[in-house]
Structures are given as C-alpha cells and as structure tokens.
C-alpha cells in the first residue's frame, strides 16, 4: 500500500492494448487508463453526463467518446469537446517505470469549465 500522494504502480504496459482503455479501482476512485501509442493517460472513469464508463469509449486521436450517448472529452486536459457538454473530467499524471504504468492520484486536476469557456 502506498500513500495517495505518491506514484502508484498500476500494471504492466502490455496489459493496456493500443488505443483502448481499461478501468482500475484505486481506493475510492475508479480511473480509466488509456494507451495512446506514444504515452498513457489516466482520467476519472465517470462520464459527467450520466456516469457512462469512459474506459469503454472509442479513442479518436486525443479524445475519448463516451459509449452511452457520445459525449467527447480531451484526454489530456479533461475538457469536453462539444460546447453542449459543460462539464470536465479529472485527469491524472502518469509515467512508465520498468515497463509498469504508474499513476499519481494526488497530482490529479480538474480544470474548471469557466477556464475553457472562451
């Protein structure tokens, strides 16, 4: 067990197929971990619309599309892509060490929608 403010070892890189996401439960949060080919990104696994599992969405470049009703989010900033969906998702820093993907929950951030408003 590791304190929440440190890097947490999640899984071997080969467990995350290219351009797909996988869910991981860390303490009380569920995150979605994606393999974008040149790097891994982590976001909260809950769509702000109706809670859809983002890990199951289709990856389109840097975006993920929620499988339930198609809201789209930027995986780097967590910002919604369509103007009609005002809410952001939280994103978490990741790194790879020794073939293992690590996530830092404490470094997570959620930009406020106002910041992206214009």
């Amino acid at each position: 067990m590791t304190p929440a403010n440190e890097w947490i070892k999640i899984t071997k890189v080969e467990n995350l197929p290219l351009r797909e996401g996988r869910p991981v439960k860390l303490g009380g949060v569920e995150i979605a971990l994606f393999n974008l080919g040149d790097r891994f990104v982590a976001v909260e696994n809950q769509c702000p619309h109706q809670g859809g599992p983002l890990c199951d969405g289709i990856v389109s470049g840097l975006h993920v599309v929620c499988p339930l009703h198609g809201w789209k989010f930027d995986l780097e900033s967590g910002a919604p892509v369509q103007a009609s969906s005002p809410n952001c998702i939280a994103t978490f820093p990741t790194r790879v060490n020794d073939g293992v993907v690590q996530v830092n929950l404490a470094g997570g951030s959620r930009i406020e929608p106002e910041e992206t408003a214009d």
Partner: protein
Amino acid sequence: MQRLIVVGNGMAGVACVEQILNHAPKFGITIFGDETHTNYNRILLSCVLAGEKSLDEITLHPVEWYQANQITLRLGVRVVDVDAERKAVIADDGTVTGFDKLLLATGSSPLIPRITGADREGVFTFRNIEDARGLLERSRRGAKAVVIGGGLLGLEAARGLQVQGCDVTVVHLMDTLMERQLDAIGGAYLTRKMESLGIRVLLGRSTSAILGNGHVEGVEFNDGEQIPADFVVIAAGIRPNVGLARRAGLTVNRGIVVNDHMETSNPDIFAVGECVEHQGTCYGLIAPLLEQGKVLAATITGNRGPVYRGTVEASRLKIMGVDVFSAGDFREAPAGQEVRTETVRYEDSSVGIYKKLVLAGSRLKGVILVGDTAESHRYMEWVRTGADLSKQRQRLLFPEPAEDAGLDVAQMPSSETICGCHGVTKEQIIHAIHARNVNTLAQLKECTRASTGCGSCTNLCEQLLRAVAPRFEEDSKTTLCACFPFSYERLREILLSQKLRSVQEVLNVYGNRKGCEVCKPAVSYLLDMIWCGGHEEDRSARFINDRVHANIQKDGTFSVVPRIRGGVTSPGELRRIADVAERYNVPMLKITGSQRIDLLGVNKADLPKIWADLGMPSGQAYTKGVRMVKTCVGSDFCRFGVQDSTSAGIELERRLENLYTPHKVKMGAVGCPRNCAEATVKDIGLVGQEGSWQVVVGGAAGKKVRRADLLITVVTTEEALQAALLFFQYYRENANYLERTYDFVERVGIEKVRKDTVYAVSTEKEKLLDRLKRSKALARDAWLEREAPVHPTQFVQIEPMENILT
C-alpha cells in the same frame, strides 16, 4: 469517299477523330493502335494505380462507338512504315493500306536515361495499361519500390505504389521536385508533404546503375551510394514518337513540325498530340492537344480557317490530399531587365500552404499554388486572357468574400474554361444544361465530357449545375465524417481496390490518422466485408459492444442474448439458461421481442464464464450483424400452414449467423400469408404459399413501418434460401454503413435490386454467393473468444499492482 488513316488510338488522335466526325465531308476512317485496349483515359492511369479507379472505368470509347461511326479499328497492330509517295501505310501484320489523308497521332514514349541495367527484369515505365497492370501485379505489401524521376508522373506513380502497400523512394536528379512546374520553395513544400505521407524523397541524385543479377536488387547513384529495390519505375520524361514521320520525309525537330493550321510539310499528312512540335514546343498535357485537334479537324476536312496559337500550360498533381497547381511562366526577371516582374507571395509552413504569383506590369504571367488550389481557375483565366489586374492588386491572393454559394461561378465570365481537359467553357455548360435538359453531374459528364478528364473541375461543374439547372439533383454523396474527405460510397470504391487490411492503415493513407466513433466502426465493417473476414481485426476501432460481444446498458453492465435459432429451444437449453441466471444473480431474465431470451445486467468480467456455462452461440444482439430469423410453427403443427417455415427459418439462420452487416438484419419465415411471425415487416422474409415461397425484402416495423417488397416467388425452399442469400450479400456489399434494408431498398429501388440479384446472369449470382461463402467460412461464433480473447485483458478490470492507503 476519301480514306483517312489514323496511326495511334490514343487520347489526342481519337479526340481529333471525334471532331472530324462533326465536319463534312465524311471520310472512311481506319484507326491503327498498337495497344490492345480501345481508347482510354491515359491520365487516369495514376488513379488506377492508386486504386481509386478500376481499369474498366477509364475507357473513353468502347468498341460500339467505333462501330456506330463506321470506323475500322485495327487494335494490336503497329504501323511500321509510311510510303508517302504511294500513299500507303505498312503494318506489322504485313498489310499495306492506302490512304488519301494520313493522321499521325503516335504520342510519345517514356525516356529511358542512360543507366546500366535499365533492361533488367523489374524495371518498369509508366505509360500505358500494360505498365499499370504490371505495376499492380508487382506491388506487394512491403516491397521496396524506387521511382526514378520526381516530376508529375513520377510522384503520382510513387503515391500509387505506396497506397498499394509498397515502401517507396523517389529519386530525383534535380534539387527541386517538379522543378519544371515549381520554384525551390514550392518544391520544398511538396517534398515535405510527400515525406509526411511516408514516401522517401532523395534529391540531387543521379542514378548510374540498376543493380542486380538478372532481376532488380538495388539502385546505385554516381557518388557510389546504393539503396535496395525490388523493382524500379523510370519516369524521367517522354520523347515524341517521330519515327514514322521521319520515314515519311516530314520535317521533324524534337517533334513533328506543324504550323498554326496544324499542317506538316506534306499536304496529305497531318499530325496531332504529343508527337507534334508547334512553334518550338512539344506539349505533354491533354488540354493543348485537344485544342490542336479542333483546329486540325477543320483543316483536314477542307474547312481551313481556325488557327492554333499555342497554349499556356497548366499542371495539377493528381494525388489526393496533395494540392499542387502551376501555370504559365513563374520565372522572376531581376530588376534592370527589359520586362520587369513583381512577385506576390504567401506562405504558412504550419499548414503547408505556399502561393506565388508572378506579374509583369499588371498582368499575371505565372502562378504556383501548393497546399491550397481552390483559386486555381481564377488565376488560370488571368494568365490565359492577360487580364488587367490593377484593380485587384489588394487582394490578389485571397478570394473575394462570397456572400452566396453561387457567387464563385457567377463571377466567372462566360468564356472562362471550366474543364481544362476537354476545353469546356461556362457558356457551353450552361447551354448544355438548357438544351439537353441536364440536371445531374452524371448527365453533364455524358453530354459535355466536362469533369471526365482529371476530375479537378468537378466542384465547379457542380456549383454551376446547382446555380443553373432547373431541377438540380446532387449525385448521392454524403461525407462519412470529418476524418475522411469523401463519401462512404467513394470510400468503399477506394477500399475495394486496395490492399489495405486494417483500420489504422486506411486512416493513415486516406484519412486524418485519428478516426472517430463514426468512421472507425464503418471502416472496420468495410474491411471485414471486402476481405471476406480476412482483414486485420482492430478492436480499438470497434464500439464497446463489439469488443466484448454484449450490449452495453445504462449502468455500464451488459446484456446477453444467446442464439435460439428460429425461436425454437429445448428443455436442456432452458434449464442451462435458468441455472446461469441464478448462478450469476442476473437481475432480469426476459423474453425478447425477437423470440429469444435476454439476460440483463451482467458484469463485463462475468461474460466469458456465462457464455461457457450457457454453451450456446452468440445471438449477435449487440451488433450490426445477423440477428435472428423469427419463425412460426408452420406446416408441422398449424392447421393452415402450407410450408415448413420453422425448418426454413432455422436453416436460413444457420447459413447466415455470425456474419456482420451494414446494419442489423432481422428476418422472418412464416408458413402462410397470415404472417404470424411478421415476415413481411422484416429485412428479409420468407412467406409460404401453397406450392411456393415469396421472398420479401426491405420490411420494417421499428422507427418506421414499411411493408417489404416482393423480391421473387420461387417453388422450392432451397430456391427461396438462395434468393435470400443473394439479397443478403448484395446488401452487405452495397448499402451504406448504418443503412437498414428498408432505406437501402428504397434508395436503390426494388427493380434494380432484382436485376442485380435474382435476375442477374448466373455468373454474377455465383460471384455474390461465392463471396458470401468465403466470408461465412471465416465467420466464427464471437463468444468463442471466451477461450481465446483477442487481448488478455479484453474482459477484465485491471487489478492495480499496489493500491492506496485509505
């Protein structure tokens, strides 16, 4: 009647004959062509190589055209000599044919630079259909191709080969690609663009040898550097074919010399096309050759009058996504010289746009456009007419802000040429629209030939049609999504002729490399259909349902619908379903509207175990694929039943299950017209009659209610199944993605559907069924992935290696 012999069945010769046919007097015409194909659009060979067109599609004149115009066609026969005195041509089949007038339209041949080994097996040129065929046969995935020559032809060949999967290097003698059409900066932009497509470009390399032992193994440059090659394409320029003209005693320089009336030095012998030299220029593009042909047609028929005064050449690169246009003379004259030039330039390297206009006084002399060629027509017109631009100086590089869509074409003068290939002006198009009642682009093409050359004026033609035609109809096309610049239909045509097997490859070559939730599943489907199941499956391109073979629900759980063929089950199956429902605490067990049983609210991780415990195949209730065949009890039990609909339905389901379709396919089989299993509102229905079956298609009772159309009435059950299979495969191959049969049949029309399926010639039917059979042979029950998942973590929630303290 005077005898006219034409040597050369190519683009310029036949176009000129077409013009001659418009004039009196009439000739008895014989055309010799040493190629075996009837007249075709040579320009489009690039598109054939890139898989955008098939060889059949580039024919310009089929045999029937020659017959209808009483032209004697001698295909595959080469004229080897001309006896100018006795006025006869001698062909390689030994025949001697007399003429009153002779027209030489022999075109040109690829120039082969002096390179050792240029005769090795595996060295190609790119000029005719045989070359294109040879290259297509040769290009395998990963094969190393070296193209010698970085001009228009070389670059188009390179892109074509790359699309075919080859690993391509372009070797160019000069430091600038297309140096005859571009300046150094423009060339650098083009080089970057080609490289970004994945084509290697080597500049300033002089090839000294093609290496290998018998067949090609590599290429050596004169500095000693060597690169490997499996085959080589030489595209280093062309040389006019003037041999016959020399033998006939005509004046010949580089080409056959003609005057402004298109006359050679012999009053009975004429020449047109690439073999001709006019005022010191030999042209290598189609537009000037067609102009020459018009003048020549008047001269040769004794209507001497029109003159040819040369043409400003305009070139356009035909590579999708690489926009390059160049026209006129773009050389800048330094200050102090007699004609001073000024240059107006714009560039933005981040988006790859470079534009340069060279003006002399207030007139446009030359233009180069890279990355954005939208305004090319305007510039071409300015160069051609020498228009005074002093009033436009402020916004030369930018279009007038258009308030309405028709403004672009409204601003063009009537005499402006819209189709450069066939020299069709705005005026002529408007005339055709009214006189020939033209309402679609297809009709316009047919009656004016506009946009049937290189196709770059298609947009303008469409705009003009939209503005003028009383009942304009768009040719069906809707872009799939923003990731691909063309319609789904177009994409299907392209992929059909491609060797691309994975979604990501298609995105890299034809799309924006990213893809989205719309195109990824669509392309996945296309590849599966085209390769009959032999594509490279990419699960990241699939909707979640197709990654885990279950339907996602509002809380992220899934539903499981096993296949219950024809709705007929057994006590054993029911018991297993009941056990599974208990064992996994399935929240709801429900009889569906499709005569099956649904286990709802299942966790992803439980799916493989549930499938194993059920021991039943997937019902494909989550995908665009074969759902079910609903059946009624039929003649086995029902007192009205006249056909065994239960067995027929189960058999139909067996033959089609596990296949994927543009949208879901639901079927029904009923034993009599009472229609208890609703076959007449299904995608495919079998309706039993006394002594026959009606096969109906395109029915619906979902968002829309539509009674299915009758496809055919047949006697035996096997015939009914065959008809259903034919329609099924036809729908698979021709419908747009996400188009249900009820929309498809309505769009195509049931008459055409019948013509192409049940009434098609038996060889076509066999082909359809054969492709279906090949797909079926590779189709497997998706739920078998429980034993061999595509990826080890396909169904699991990842367990972190360490968790956090809470």
